[in-house]
Structure formats: structure tokens, C-alpha cells
């Protein structure tokens, strides 16, 4: 906290600037891989926001899917393809949905919270699967986006979309880092550690949990919108529980003590998965299982604890996960 200077924001700026620059020289497949992992990392950052308050959501796919379908429906039915506009619509929809569902969920903790989030996402999944106007189980294609209404920017979507994703994830990381360091960020940790005391410090644990659920939902929906444009397609799998489970996996992989942890873990996971799929198509899920086992056994605080150990000066910074 007060020990050692916090250099996270300059480091994030540096890291994302390098990534942005690298985007112009990277092979397209790698650029795509990074874009997908960055978009997905937003969902994981949301999971981390919840985990810091002691909550696990197995239903972030709900918001991820909402975000994705927002891009798809806006493009196909309303002709809205401007990425800044669809992002705003996604945020509005997820705030609304999260605000409504959160009213129920903020009363629950632990396994009950986790199962309810899962239930909500599976409801959305089945609604979409059974609904032909939403593309049913096949989903539908998402028209290519525009950026601030300028289509020339999309002359080379292989370059500009990864750049937009990179910038969005950078902005979110900076904001969330500041959030973790704010009173509300610490209040979340306090809720995980002792709800009775939080109530006796004049704050409502329910309101705190409620706000975090909405925030995590917003992040997931932004990720969903970006993924929809990145892949040009949405389908109900986005809301399926295994999708949500994967995000929890990546959250555990990275750890919850720093905003960069889920981003790094997400990139790593995506790289690992694409190689594992190539090299060992039949056992890659087993490999993932072993990795998770090893992480829980030997690095219960995630990969970030390795990075934190490399830099002892910065450890004090992250003392309140």
C-alpha cells in the first residue's frame, strides 16, 4: 500500500504500447491470437473482480454472450456496425441485465452464488438455441465493424481491429487497477474477509457485491462484443457453461492479486490451447486439467505470484489481494 511506489500504470502503458506496435509486424495469425486472448481477458478481469470479493461466477458466459449478440443483432437487424456505438449498447444492456439479476444474486454467496450465475447463463443459452430469429444453435454472422463511422479504417481489419481491442483492454486495465486501489476495491476484499465487520463499518456488503457483479458483467459484455467482431460470428456456445468455466480456469491460472495477471494468463492460455490442439488433439483437455492441478497445488495464488516473487519490492503493493 504505502510501501514502494506503484509503477503499474506506466508499466501497463509500456506493455500495451509495445503490443500495439508489434501488431504491425506480427504475423496475422499471431495478431489474431493476441486479439482473441485480449478480448477474452476482459471477461477474466471481471471474474477477478468477483474473486477478490470471495465470489466465483460460473456464468460470466451470460454477459459474454449478451455482448456478442449485441454486436450481431445491432449489425444484422439495425445496421449498426460502429464499434464504439455497439460497445456502448453492450455496456448499457449488461448494466441493465446485471442490475436486475444482481438484485437476486447479491443475497447469495459461495456455491449458491456460483450456481445461480450458472443457471442464469444456461437460461440465456436455451432461449437462444430455441429461437430461430436469434439464429438458433448455429448463431449468425456478424457484419464487419466500423470505427467512428469511418470505413477506410477497416480497409485492413486484420490490423485495425486488434489495435482497437488492444486500446480497449489497456483502458479497462488502467481503470480496473485504479479501482482495485480505491476504497471500493478494498471494500470488496473486506467483504470476503469479514462481512459482519463491513456492516459494522457502515457499509452494506450486499451493495458492494451488487456493484461488483454489475462491473464484472460489463467487462464480460465488452469482451463478448470484441470477440464477435474478431471472429465475425456469434453462437449460443458463448453462454454455455463450459465457456464460463474456462474463464474461471484462466482466472485461477493468473491469480487475483494484480490486474495484469488475468491478461497474461489469458494470452498464455490461448497460446497453450492452440498449440495443444495441434500437437495433442486428443489429450489437450487432460493437459489443461493437469496444469490446473499443478497451479492449485504449487501456485495457489496463480502465475502472478511468480512474477511478484521476482520483484520483491513490488510485493508489498499486492499485499491485499
Amino acid at each position, binding site marked *: *500500500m*504505502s510501501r514502494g511506489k506503484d509503477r503499474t500504470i506506466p508499466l501497463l502503458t509500456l506493455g500495451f504500447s509495445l503490443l500495439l506496435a508489434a501488431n504491425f509486424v506480427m504475423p496475422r495469425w499471431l495478431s489474431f491470437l493476441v486479439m482473441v486472448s485480449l478480448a477474452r481477458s476482459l471477461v477474466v478481469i471481471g471474474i477477478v473482480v468477483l474473486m477478490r470479493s470471495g465470489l466465483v461466477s460460473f456464468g460470466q458466459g451470460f454477459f459474454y454472450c449478451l455482448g456478442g449478440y449485441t454486436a450481431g443483432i445491432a449489425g444484422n437487424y439495425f445496421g449498426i456496425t460502429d464499434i464504439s456505438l455497439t460497445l456502448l449498447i453492450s455496456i448499457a444492456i449488461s448494466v441493465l441485465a446485471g442490475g436486475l439479476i444482481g438484485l437476486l444474486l447479491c443475497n447469495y454467496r459461495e456455491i449458491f452464488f456460483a450456481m445461480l450465475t450458472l443457471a442464469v447463463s444456461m437460461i440465456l443459452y436455451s432461449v437462444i438455441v430455441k429461437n430461430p430469429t436469434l439464429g438458433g444453435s448455429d448463431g449468425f454472422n456478424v457484419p464487419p465493424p466500423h470505427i467512428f463511422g469511418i470505413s477506410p479504417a477497416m480497409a485492413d481489419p486484420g490490423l485495425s481491429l486488434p489495435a482497437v481491442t488492444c486500446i480497449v483492454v489497456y483502458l479497462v486495465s488502467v481503470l480496473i487497477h*485504479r*479501482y482495485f*486501489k*480505491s*476504497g*471500493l*476495491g*478494498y*471494500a470488496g*476484499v*473486506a467483504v470476503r*474477509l*469479514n462481512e*459482519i*465487520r*463491513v*456492516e*459494522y*463499518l*457502515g*457499509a*452494506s456488503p450486499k*451493495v*458492494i457485491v451488487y456493484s461488483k457483479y454489475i462491473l464484472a458483467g460489463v467487462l464480460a459484455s465488452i469482451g463478448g462484443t470484441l470477440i464477435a467482431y474478431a471472429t465475425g460470428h456469434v453462437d449460443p456456445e458463448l453462454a454455455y457453461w463450459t465457456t464460463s468455466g474456462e474463464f474461471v480456469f484462466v482466472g485461477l491460472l493468473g491469480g487475483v492479486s494484480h490486474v495484469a495477471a488475468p491478461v497474461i494468463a489469458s494470452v498464455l492460455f490461448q497460446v497453450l490451447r492452440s498449440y495443444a490442439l495441434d500437437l495433442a488433439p486428443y489429450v489437450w483437455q487432460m493437459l489443461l486439467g493437469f496444469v490446473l492441478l499443478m497451479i492449485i497445488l504449487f501456485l495457489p495464488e496463480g502465475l502472478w505470484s511468480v512474477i511478484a516473487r521476482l520483484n520483491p519490492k513490488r510485493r508489498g503493493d499486492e*499485499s*491485499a*489481494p
Partner: protein
Amino acid sequence: MKALLEVHNLSKNFGAVVAAEDINVTIGEKEVVGIIGANGAGKTTFVNIITGYVKPTAGTVRFQGTDITGQPPRKIIRMGICRSFQITQLFPDMDVWENLMVSCTLLNNPLKRLTRPFDQKGFRDRVMGTLEEFGISEYAHEAVSTLPQGVRKLLDVAMAMMGPTNLLLLDEPTSGVAIHEKFPLMDTIMESVKSTGAATIFIEHDMDIVQNYTDRIIAFYDGRVIADGPAAEVVKNEEVIRYVIGQEPERDGEG
């Protein structure tokens, strides 16, 4: 003396168990009141009702003239009623400094202003001051799980007092603390209370402590108040001797 807290006809039943029966108590500003009673007499229930943790079956609680009966703890705490806990309620995994910083931030910021940075100069200074006042500066960066019981107790009280303090309710502040540490601990707490000008109600089993620090004693038995008056008179009350002092109480279990 101006009334700070007025409790009228307060009753609470937990099923067939009567935890509070027709309690009438008025506490004045800056008054220091001790509550005594055997285990299960209803002392903690009394504190729990005042702070909103338990809703009474009947009766009213007024604080500074405002009816606070049945309000949630967070609303009552914001009015300046603070409490400590018999079983300390700390944030494990955080060190002493962070425990106090979180308390200071939550108590002094409305939720909508919590987006401001946690580590603010004003709060840092306040926490530093509190650490010194309670004599626990040397433990500032120790994890709370490793603290001696006396320090845990002090931290528990210090956390409660990080915001506005008009009335402090201490639930067995010296329980679990070694005998020779009890008086220094109470000295520290009462010194700090005096500087805030708050009234204090504390539950205590140790009669030496009660008589040493209070002007007035309220004795509970079976959910009722059996005596309420100047300390010297209450300890001579026959009922009090028979039901409270006579049987030297055990030191735990009331929660």
C-alpha cells in the same frame, strides 16, 4: 444530564427463550456504564439490539432523540454508535495497518465516494494517530492472525472508533486477556474514549474492572434489569450479589 440513548420496554424472545424482557434504560452523554450479569443474562443481546444486529420483539430504542429501532447496523453505525466484539471481528489476511485503513475508509466515506484512492494522506495520518493512541504502532505491519490477544482486542476497539463516535459499546473488552494486562488495556481504551467525548457502555465480568472504570452499573439477570444505579450501590444489592457476583461467572460462551 442530556439523554443520549433511551431504551423503552425492550423485549426479545428467541422462540421460548426470553433474552430481553421489558428493559428500560437511559444513558446520558459522556456517561460510562458497566453491564454485568451471568452468562445468558442477555447482555450481548442488549448490545446486539441497540446496534441493529438483532431486531427486538417489542420496545423502542432512541438515539439522540431519533428512533433507531430495527434499523440495520450500517445505518446505526453512521450515527456514531460504535461497538467492539466479544470475539474480535478483524480482517484476517490483512495487517493491522490495512485493517485500520479499511475501517477509516468505510466509516468516513459514503459509498459513492469510495471510488477515490484508498491510500489517502488524511486517512494515513489518522491511522498513524490511532496506532500511537492505542500503543500498537509496533504491530502495524503484522498479520492480524499472529497478534497477541490483547492487541487483537485493542485493534477491534480501534477499528470501531475510526469514524464518528458518540456512543461506544464494548462487549467484554478484556475477555481472554491475561489478568495483568487488563488494567493497562482498559486505561488505553478509556483514555481514547475520553478524547472523543463519547459515552461508553461496556459488558464485563471482572468486577474490579467494572468498579474501577464506571460511574454506574446495570445488572442483568434472565433477560431483565435487576439493578441500575451508582456502582457502589449496585454491588451491594442483594439480588446482584446472589445472581451475579455470588456465582463467579465463566468467561466465554455468550457470543
